């Protein structure tokens, strides 16, 4: 027999056990501790309860199952540590030789099974609740794009409202040349706005790859799948700003497409919507106008930074996308440039912006690309040119 096995030499000191025990106790205390720390902003430990009834039920389910696990864990680890401390060879115990007991085996199969059934009941009812899409007061179509969200308010009276919501954290913060603000990576240029105490149904889809629309405090997570429309809903009980992120890996900037939802009073919502509709009407008007090079360049720069920069670079130097500076398309014949901007390049990250940007913005950004980064083509594109190109 290998002599190293002599107990005096090799079994662990009681101190080591105390450490092990202290650790297990630590783990067991941390878990409930986690329960108590309901959602402080900094270093939150637990799932947020959120501001919806569904969120509340989910939180309760989460806590029940957590406590069941803690209880079973305390029992199992308790028995184990008792054994580790008292049934050690170094204490001179003689090993028992018992094994097999059908009674015990049946008990520890049946008891957990019963616990699971008691768990399955509330889980089922919450799930049925989540799946009750009927009687929504309003619908919002949510579309995931690489790497931003588009919100469209459906079936509203008057001018339809649709806009994109992009990350608004500056590159300088991401690349550490500037200090980070408190909403770092969780801020957008234009949030989704919904009224409080209103059942809002979201129709969720995607334009390119699969994304997932997740706002923890609204207790909503639904995959956005190209070609399919998923349903989900929420009813926020409290006015406030709620932040979330894309939850399904969707390519390079998966980590940079946050979601911000402003829940406002019903009056504020009506006012906001009215303003939005007015704006939409204004864009329609703008479409009929002609702009100067300066106007187009200024607008185009903003559009570029929001939509193109991520792939084509701040100086048009390229990246995921090709370089714009000196590009044969941006310095070539206008038709080719319009084609790519409007219809994209199938099967690549270059999207069809024709459906995403209005004609004014398209005209501006194409003008910008042709005249910035040393391209200096000198030609300008008017909204009407874009309109005509789209008509074929």
């Amino acid at each position, binding site marked *: 027999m290998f002599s190293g096995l002599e107990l005096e030499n090799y079994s*662990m000191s009681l101190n080591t056990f105390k450490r092990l025990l202290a650790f297990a106790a630590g783990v067991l205390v941390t878990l409930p501790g986690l329960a108590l720390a309901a959602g402080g902003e900094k270093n939150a430990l637990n799932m947020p309860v959120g501001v919806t009834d569904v969120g509340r039920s989910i939180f309760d389910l989460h806590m029940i199952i957590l406590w069941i*696990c803690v209880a079973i864990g305390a029992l199992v680890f308790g028995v184990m540590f008792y054994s580790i401390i008292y049934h050690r060879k170094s204490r001179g115990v003689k*090993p028992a030789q018992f094994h097999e007991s059908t009674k015990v085996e049946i008990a520890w199969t049946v008891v957990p099974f019963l616990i699971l059934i008691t768990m399955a009941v509330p*889980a089922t009812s919450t799930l049925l609740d989540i799946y009750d899409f009927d009687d929504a007061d309003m619908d919002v179509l949510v579309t995931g794009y690489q790497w931003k969200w588009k919100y469209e308010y459906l079936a509203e009276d008057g001018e339809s409202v649709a806009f994109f919501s992009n990350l608004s954290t500056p590159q300088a913060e991401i690349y550490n040349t500037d200090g980070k603000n408190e909403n770092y990576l969780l801020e957008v240029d234009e949030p989704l706005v919904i009224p409080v105490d209103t059942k809002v149904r979201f129709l969720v889809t995607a334009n*390119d*790859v699969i994304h997932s629309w997740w706002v923890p405090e609204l207790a909503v997570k639904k995959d956005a799948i*190209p070609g399919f429309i998923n349903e989900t809903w929420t009813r926020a009980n409290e006015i406030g700003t709620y932040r979330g992120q894309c*939850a399904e890996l969707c390519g390079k900037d998966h980590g940079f497409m946050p979601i911000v939802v402003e829940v406002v009073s019903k009056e504020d919502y009506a006012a906001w919507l009215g303003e939005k509709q007015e704006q939409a009407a204004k864009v329609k008007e703008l479409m009929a106008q002609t702009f100067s090079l300066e106007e187009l360049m200024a607008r185009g720069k903003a559009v570029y930074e929001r939509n193109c920069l991520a792939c084509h670079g701040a100086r048009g130097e390229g990246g995921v996308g090709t370089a714009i500076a000196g590009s044969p398309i941006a310095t070539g014949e206008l038709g080719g440039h319009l084609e790519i901007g409007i219809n994209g390049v199938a099967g690549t990250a270059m999207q069809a912006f024709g459906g995403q940007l209005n004609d004014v913005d398209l005209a501006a950004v194409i003008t910008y690309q042709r005249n910035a980064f040393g391209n200096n083509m000198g030609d300008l594109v008017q909204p009407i040119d874009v309109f005509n190109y789209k008509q074929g």
Partner: protein
Amino acid sequence: MGDHHHGPAKGLSRWLFTTNHKDIGTMYLWFSFAMFLLGGTFAMIIRAELFQPGMQLVEPAFFNQMTTLHGLVMVFGAIMPSFVGLANWLIPMMIGAPDMALPRLNNWSFWILPPAFLLLASTLFMEGGAPAAGWTFYAPLSTTYAGPSVTIFIFCIHILGVSSIMGSINIIATVMNMRAPGMSYMKMPLFVWTWLITAFLLVAVMPVLAGAVTMMLMDVHFGTSFFSAAGGGDPVLFQHIFWFFGHPEVYIIILPAFGVVSQIIPAFSRKPLFGYDSMVYATAAIAFLSFIVWAHHMYTVGMPVAGELFFMYATMLIAVPTGVKVFNWITTMWRGALTFETPMLFCIGFLVLFTIGGFTGLMLSIAPADFQYHDSYFVVAHFHYVMVAGAVFSMTAAVYFWLPKWCGKMYNETMGKTHFWISFIAFNVTFFPQHFVGLAGMPRRIPDYSLQFADFNMMSSIGAFVYGASQLLFLYNVIATIVAGKPVSDDKVWDGAEGLEWTVATPAPYHTFEVPPKIDPAHAHF
């Protein structure tokens, strides 16, 4: 006769042409350890980038390549081959067989692996970089939106599949045909049982994975639209196929680990396994259930509510046989005479941490709650508790346990225990806080995060660096043992160890059981 007793060939050809199960087992084990270090390097890059908010070291595109390769290399390169290596070394010795049933096939199963992983690693240098759609490579991100490396990746998956299927057929053939007379099924050691069941799982699901990647290939190169709605296909179909493979796959990873633990805990408790029969049945039950729970990975894709309910109930059910296993191990320790050598420490570590992973699994199985957990760091914590503290800890235990038998030398116990304690603490420092950030809303697979997650991420990164470094101690200990360990001469290295592998000489001779051993009919099981 003379031909039968030859020793190993000399030089490189010994390893290239070997059909000896011990040589092949050794190669598998070293290869998987190399992959463990490679996948670990990728993990270190991930954790270094996540050390602080902001982008510091790598670009987001490269970050995605790292998470993808880390997962693929760890699952297919480190964990799976390591257990195949263990099976090769141990199954013939445990059932009293002279070798594996199909030795030449065995040689091939191993030797196609290194080129496959070389190819996979080489995609890092391709234009567009390595695959970056995650180890679960959901379409269409992995198909029409992927770079050129996806084609190589598909080829690699095919090779790995072939290797696994050949390995499994070999294990099934060996267990079914090569048991020593008197070694009935219900006498086989649990490690053999769990591997037999695992081998059936592998044969059943690797072709499914092969089907998935072949459809991807068609979509990418031959104009089909299996996974594209625009052409009449369905991106969710990919997930169904993937997880029909993927969920049994996680049990492919953990069942052999269960086997290892079921050998080691009785040895250091000096007491037979509490319920041998029920352990066998529980393993079979888990294997069966693993085929009908796959969509618990897909609660948020928009399944009909009846589907959600079915998969929720089935998944919750898996906790029952899993619980039976844990209760059995604990009852085995109960009133034993315990000692705590390194293999036992790793098994106890397994028991505590795997159980925690099982608990979070149970939490994840609750579909409504999973709407909050899904694709967050909570899931990352869950599967590292079951795969690292589960599979990797038990594999480590296995190496310490059988190494003296394999090389005839004893490892340094102090160093082994140090390795355990550093691993155990560092593992928890790394992964326990991930539960918190996940619950608080941090999505997985992101290269940068908002400020409220900063402290726990830094903790996680520090833990990861320490855990990573402690594996070098393991490597050193193993090499030092092989080169200059204290010789062991007893057949039965550990006083509580049971089983035929402990009846052969130490170190185990190149050929064992050329004459089948006599099995004592009174022996209940091994």
